[in-house]
Every structure is written in structure tokens, then in C-alpha cells.
């Protein structure tokens, strides 16, 4: 078999974490090879290595049977490999034609009309019809995608990698994309198609490879495997059916009715009860972050209504939400939670300054000390030095500090957005314990996560999101993981 691309035993480490462990992948010409796996399984990393954006730490790559040494993005292009990302990789202020022709201009002098014509030719070959004179910023996401595909074709791409290509597409656009991909197949192009959406795999691909925790669990012919089998491979254990009772919880503290935060969240309705842990599960990019933000007032609500403790609210900024007792621990602690060059103590007190302020805006040192000490102890932040600069703490402790900051505000409703990302196992377990304690104390928690196992384990109930909408609710039971994955990866047909 003449493989276009062969990856053998490819490994990749980030710091001291092994992200890819001896992964094999072979791409046959004229086929679509789907790459699936849960978040963090390593799909994107594998593709980026092939496309030359990351160097590999081990293993071999062969293109058309020839071993490839150093592989950077330029070399990858020369070898006919190109990658299309979720975020379009184009220059927004330049026209479609200019973007397509970038890097392959015929000569020093450019004749605009010639450029337009050539770009139109390329688009026509690919089967698209776009106005080549428009600046790329005026195009829809799908159109930008088409431009990138056309550009890749014009660069003689033989292996096209597409990462979550349908994330921003409507049903019609998706169909169009599939037609395009089939046409590429006919021309002998090999397509690596990364996706979460299993029906797409069965509609489009000849082969499917499942990654889990950086390992290649298996490669199968699509015609010889079922959805359940794929899910099993992704998750690692068989389907079990188990029922769990709901724990008793108190009154409704938060209610959303048809809340939208465009374009990521559409018409979400939910109720949060006192003392419960409500999980929001779903694949990365399903809108959980934006849902958390709109509840917290960090993003404007585009539609719908929100009620806190029975009162209608309209938050214009986070401080409004904080006044109602709502706190949000954002997922990006470096970008949105902590000030890296400030000390631990100053970071921890940052959201609760009003409570320790006396007259004239002066901060009460003894109250301040007490609060900081309390938080450091409660969350076991190590080393317990409040004057130490935040940057110097480990990732796990930084996350603890971020959570401590919000606990110090004594919230009634605490939202946590992907709280255990980038956190070591020990800290993770510690945090799980802390969250349970909080719920027992009567604080209501809203937990978003793309780690289904985790969110099912922690929550009373889990609401599943896909593409900004709620699809289903499950009881909080880790045994339901397969079921959950099934629900969120299957298409609207389900």
C-alpha cells in the first residue's frame, strides 16, 4: 500500500507531560481519515506536528515513502501538506485574491486583474464561487474556509488536514463542505478530518483512528465499526446502565430563560438549586465559557431573562453580578484571574476589597491578614507565603489561589469554568473535596467542564451542551459517560 503519509511512533512532550505517546497514523491517497477522541486526547497536536508547527520529540514521519527530517511549516507545504484550522488563517484586510495568491505571486509586479482572474480560476477548479475582490474580513466563516481550501489546492496540497471544520457551519454549509471534500478525494487528495461529531465520521470517512490520552487506541475501517464501538474506544470502558437518585436540594437560586450570548450561546434555560452542584458538560467550544460569562455579567445578554433568588436581573458588568452574590472562576487563570506579578495575598483579596476596607478607602491590615491566611489555609496553598509573587507558584497552586480569590467573596452562587485544567492530580482531588464541602455548606455551584468523567462525578445533575444549546440532562453519575458522549457527539438527527 502506497501511503501518502506515515507517522510512526510519534511522541511529543510539553514540559514534563507526554502529550503524544508512540502514535502511528497512515493516510491512503484519495481517502478521508477521521481522527477522533475526547478533549486533550492529542488530535490537534498530532496534526500540528504533521503540518510542521510543532517539532516532534520522537518517531518518524514518511511522506510518499521518504523519511522526513526536520519538518517546519514551509517544508510541510513543499511536501504537499497543509492544515486548515478552526480559526481562519488569513490576512483579514487583504482581498480573497490576494490571500490566495500570497506566497505564489507570478512575478515582482502584480497585475491586479491578472490576480483576480487567477484567483477565480483557482476557485473554479475547486468548485467555489466567491467574489475575489472582497476583503476577507467580509466573508462568513464558511467562505473563509473555502478560501483556505482553494489556497491549499493551489499550492498542490496532497494531504489536507482539517481541524473541527464544521464547528461554525450551518447544515447547508456543512453539506457543501462535504461535497468539496468528496471532490478532493476523487482527485486523490488525502484528508485528515479531526472531529467530535461521530455521524460525520460515518458519512465522510473511510478510516477512523481513535486517540485517548495521547495514545492511538486503534485504527478501523469505518465500514467495519459501529458508533458504540468508537465511543467505547474513546472512553475506555463498556457501556453500563446505572441509575442514581437525585440528592435533595433546596430552593431555586438561579434561573435562566432562553438566554443567548451570541454567537456562542442560543436560548439556554436552566435552574440552579441551593446546595446543588450543577454540571454543564459538552465538548470544548460548545459555549460553556460564554454561558458562564453571561451569567456573571462579563458578556452582555443578547436575549432572554435571568432571575437570581427570584428577582429579575440585568447585569451590565461583573460587579453587578458580584453584588448579587455570584462569582465566576474563569478558566484562563493567567489571563483573567490572576495578576502574575502581584503577590499571592494581593491576588487573593482582589475581588473582595470592599469587605476589608475601612473609612477613607484604607484597608484594614488585620482583617486583610486574616482573610488571606484563612484562604491559604482553607485551600492549602503551598508555600503559604502571602508575599510571594504569583508567578512563582506552581500551576496547581495558582489555580487554588484563583479559587481562593473567589471564595473570599463569600459567594452564594459560584460558577467554575473548567476548574481543573492544567492542574495536577493531587490538586484536582483536593479541589473536588473542596467543592463538595462548599455545596454542603449551602453554596450553589455551577461547574462547566469538557471532561465528562469529571463533571459527571462531581455534579448532582449534568446539563449537556452542544453548539451553544442544551441537548439533554443526565443525572450526575460517572457511569453515564458513554451515554453523555453519545448525546453530545451525535448529530441533530438523534
Amino acid at each position, binding site marked *: 500500500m502506497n501511503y501518502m503519509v506515515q507517522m510512526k511512533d510519534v511522541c511529543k512532550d510539553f514540559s514534563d507531560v507526554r502529550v503524544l505517546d508512540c502514535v502511528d497514523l497512515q493516510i491512503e491517497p484519495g481517502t478521508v481519515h477521521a481522527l477522533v477522541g475526547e478533549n486533550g486526547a492529542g488530535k490537534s497536536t498530532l496534526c500540528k506536528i504533521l503540518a510542521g508547527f510543532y517539532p516532534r520529540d520522537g518517531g518518524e514521519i514518511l511522506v510518499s515513502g521518504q523519511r522526513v527530517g526536520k519538518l517546519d511549516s514551509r517544508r510541510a507545504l513543499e511536501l504537499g501538506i497543509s492544515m486548515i484550522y478552526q480559526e481562519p488563517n488569513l490576512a483579514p484586510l*487583504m482581498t480573497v485574491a490576494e490571500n490566495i495568491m*500570497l506566497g505564489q505571486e507570478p512575478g515582482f509586479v502584480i497585475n491586479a486583474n491578472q490576480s483576480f482572474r487567477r484567483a477565480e480560476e483557482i476557485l473554479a477548479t475547486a468548485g467555489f464561487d466567491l467574489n475575489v475582490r472582497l476583503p476577507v474580513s467580509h466573508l462568513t466563516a464558511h467562505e473563509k474556509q473555502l478560501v483556505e481550501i482553494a489556497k491549499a489546492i493551489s499550492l498542490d496540497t496532497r494531504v489536507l488536514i482539517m481541524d473541527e471544520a464544521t464547528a461554525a457551519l450551518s447544515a447547508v454549509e456543512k453539506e457543501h463542505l462535504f461535497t468539496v471534500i468528496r471532490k478532493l478525494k476523487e482527485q486523490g487528495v488525502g484528508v485528515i478530518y479531526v472531529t467530535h461529531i461521530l455521524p460525520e465520521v460515518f458519512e465522510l470517512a473511510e478510516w477512523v483512528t481513535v486517540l485517548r490520552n495521547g495514545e492511538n487506541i486503534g485504527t478501523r475501517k469505518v465500514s467495519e465499526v459501529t458508533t458504540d464501538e468508537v465511543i467505547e474506544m474513546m472512553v475506555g470502558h463498556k457501556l453500563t446502565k446505572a441509575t442514581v437518585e437525585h440528592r435533595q436540594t433546596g430552593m431555586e437560586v438561579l434561573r435562566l430563560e432562553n438566554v443567548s450570548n451570541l454567537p456562542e450561546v442560543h436560548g439556554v434555560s436552566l435552574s440552579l438549586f441551593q446546595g446543588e452542584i450543577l454540571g454543564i458538560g459538552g465538548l470544548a467550544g460548545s459555549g460553556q465559557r460564554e454561558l458562564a460569562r453571561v451569567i456573571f455579567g462579563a458578556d452582555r445578554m443578547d436575549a432572554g431573562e435571568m432571575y437570581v433568588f427570584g428577582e429579575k436581573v440585568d447585569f451590565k458588568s461583573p460587579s453587578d453580578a458580584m453584588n448579587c452574590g455570584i462569582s465566576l472562576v474563569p478558566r484562563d487563570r493567567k489571563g483573567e484571574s490572576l495578576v502574575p506579578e502581584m503577590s499571592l495575598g494581593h491576588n487573593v483579596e482582589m475581588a473582595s476589597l470592599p469587605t476589608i476596607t475601612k473609612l477613607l478607602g484604607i484597608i484594614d491590615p488585620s482583617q486583610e491578614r486574616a482573610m488571606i491566611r484563612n484562604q491559604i489555609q482553607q485551600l492549602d496553598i503551598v508555600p503559604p507565603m502571602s508575599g510571594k509573587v504569583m508567578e512563582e507558584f506552581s500551576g496547581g497552586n495558582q489555580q487554588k489561589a484563583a479559587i481562593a480569590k473567589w471564595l473570599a467573596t463569600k459567594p452564594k452562587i459560584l460558577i467554575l469554568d473548567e476548574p481543573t485544567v492544567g492542574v495536577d492530580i493531587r490538586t484536582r482531588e483536593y479541589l473536588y473535596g473542596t467543592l463538595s464541602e462548599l455545596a454542603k455548606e449551602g453554596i450553589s455551584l455551577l461547574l462547566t467542564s469538557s471532561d465528562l468523567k469529571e463533571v459527571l462525578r462531581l455534579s448532582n445533575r449534568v446539563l449537556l451542551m452542544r453548539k451553544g444549546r442544551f441537548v439533554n440532562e443526565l443525572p450526575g453519575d460517572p457511569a453515564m459517560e458513554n451515554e453523555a458522549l453519545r448525546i453530545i457527539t451525535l448529530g441533530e438527527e438523534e
Partner: protein
Amino acid sequence: MGRVGRALTWEAWLLIINVAVIALFANMVVGFAQSPAVLNVSRALTILGIIAVGQSLVMAAGGVDLSVGSIFGFAAVLLAILYKLGYGFGIMLLAGVGAGCFIGIINGLSVTKLGFKPFIATFAMMIALRAIAYFTMKGTIGLAAQGVTGTVWTDLVRVQSPLWLYPSFFILLVAAVGGWWLLNNTRFGSWARGTGGNLNAARAVGVPVDRVRIITYVASGALAAVAGMLNVGDIQGVRTFDGAGMELLSLAAVIIGGASLAGGSASILGTLLAVLLISLVKVGVSLMGIALWYQQIITGAVLLAALVLTRLSLRRGIARTEKELTK
């Protein structure tokens, strides 16, 4: 694909504003429409315009050059020194442009190879060069100011002719047309705008992003040097603080001209129209018979107003270049 319809382009608006200002001044200000005033506008336009063309190129590629004012001054100092030593036009030209290019290379290298942000790198150059200019002049001539008369430079700028076109104006035209052509009709221009628009994408398709950026800084440096030397001819002398403030004025002109703050697009035409506006206001106000200080206020206020309007309207997405309206 929604179209903006019959909205005017940004350059068209700038043209309209310029015409309005001309009409206003022609009516209200005595002597505006006459020869000396027009010549003054032309001279101011020339000098700032040449610098602004260079700045446009740098900004299109995603950078910024804060050292142009100091390069301007440094070139002037070189000219004074060579004048004192008795050299001729050819050597002066070579030395000035050469110095401008050299400094541009240093700027370009700090940004691409050393990894400094353009703002920081060129700011440091601005200060360093100004000091070097001063001490060079003091060291060789011994003065902080020097008269320079009877050179070709003067003839380039101060021709007493009934026409309001100076040779230096032609130099501006050449620079502007050259810049425009380079930016819009050549591969290099595509590369520059691609680099400014999306560095990663450009690099990925093989655009030599480092080389491209260095070249833009070289162009900016050379043009600033030329402007500095023309200025010597204009005021027939050199003072060590010549050119101070030019960097920010050129930046303002490029922004008002419709360039994107983040890079990826710049309009030479827009920049020139902005420079024209600034020059018109400067000259018109100076003719009003009001004190110098009022001129300064008005100039500053106009600048501010223009910047504010630019930011506010661009946020509403008014069509920015001609290209968006075709087809």
C-alpha cells in the same frame, strides 16, 4: 454577501474635508489662495508627506517607526557637517540616504532578530539618535545650529517660480506613487500587507517576513533622511532639534489616512490627504494673523478631532478602501 452600498470610501471623505477646509480658508483667511501660502502648504506637505509615505509602509507591515524624527534630524546634521567641510550635493545625498538606510537596517534587525516590539525598538533609536546627532554636530562643527545656504537643496525647495510646483514636490510625488505602486501592485506589497495582516499565515506560505519588515524600515529611514535634507534647504539651516515631533505627526497622518492600527493595510492616498489636511490647517491658521500659540492649539485640536473621528467611524465599519466597492 452584504455590500455597504453607496457609501463613500474613507479617502473620498478625506478629500471632501480637504476641499471644505480649502474653501473655508480661501474665504475667511486673507492671502490663503495666493502664491506664498500655496507654496508654504506645498513645502509642509512635501516634508511631512515624504516621511509619512515611509511610515505607511512600515505600518502596513505591522510595525511602527518612532525614530523618523531623529533620522530626519540626523541627516540634517550630516548635511551641515558636509557643507562645512565643503562637500557637494552628491556626497551629501549619498551620506544622508545611506545613513537613513543604515539606521533602518538596525531598526529592522532589532524587531526581527532581537524580537523587540517595534514601538520599543524605534523609541530607543529615536532617543539615542537624537543625542548622537547633537554630539556629532557639536563635535565636528562646534555649534548647535548652522546656516546652510547656496546649496542645491535650497533650490529644490525654495524655487521662486510662479508655479506652485516645486522640485521637492515632485520628489514627494515620486515617493508617493512609488510607495503606492509598491504596496498595491507588487509582490513585495502583498508580502508586506500579508505580514502585517497575519504574520503566521504569511510565514507559513513562505513569505520572507523578516526581510520584508527590514526593507520597510529601510525605506522609512531613507525617506526620513531625504525629508530632513530637504528641510535644510527650506529653512536654510540646521538645528539639532529639527524634526522633533515628526514621528508622531507622521503616525497621526497614517492613522487618519485610514491605516489599520494593527497592521495589514495602509492607504498612501489617505495618508497624503491627511498630510495635506494637517499642512493646510497649519498654514491657514498661521495666516489668520492670530498668534503662534493659537495656531498650535488649533493644529492640535484638529489633529485630535481627526483622530477621534477616525477611531469612532472606523469602529462603525465605514468602507476603508476603494477595493471594497468594486464588483
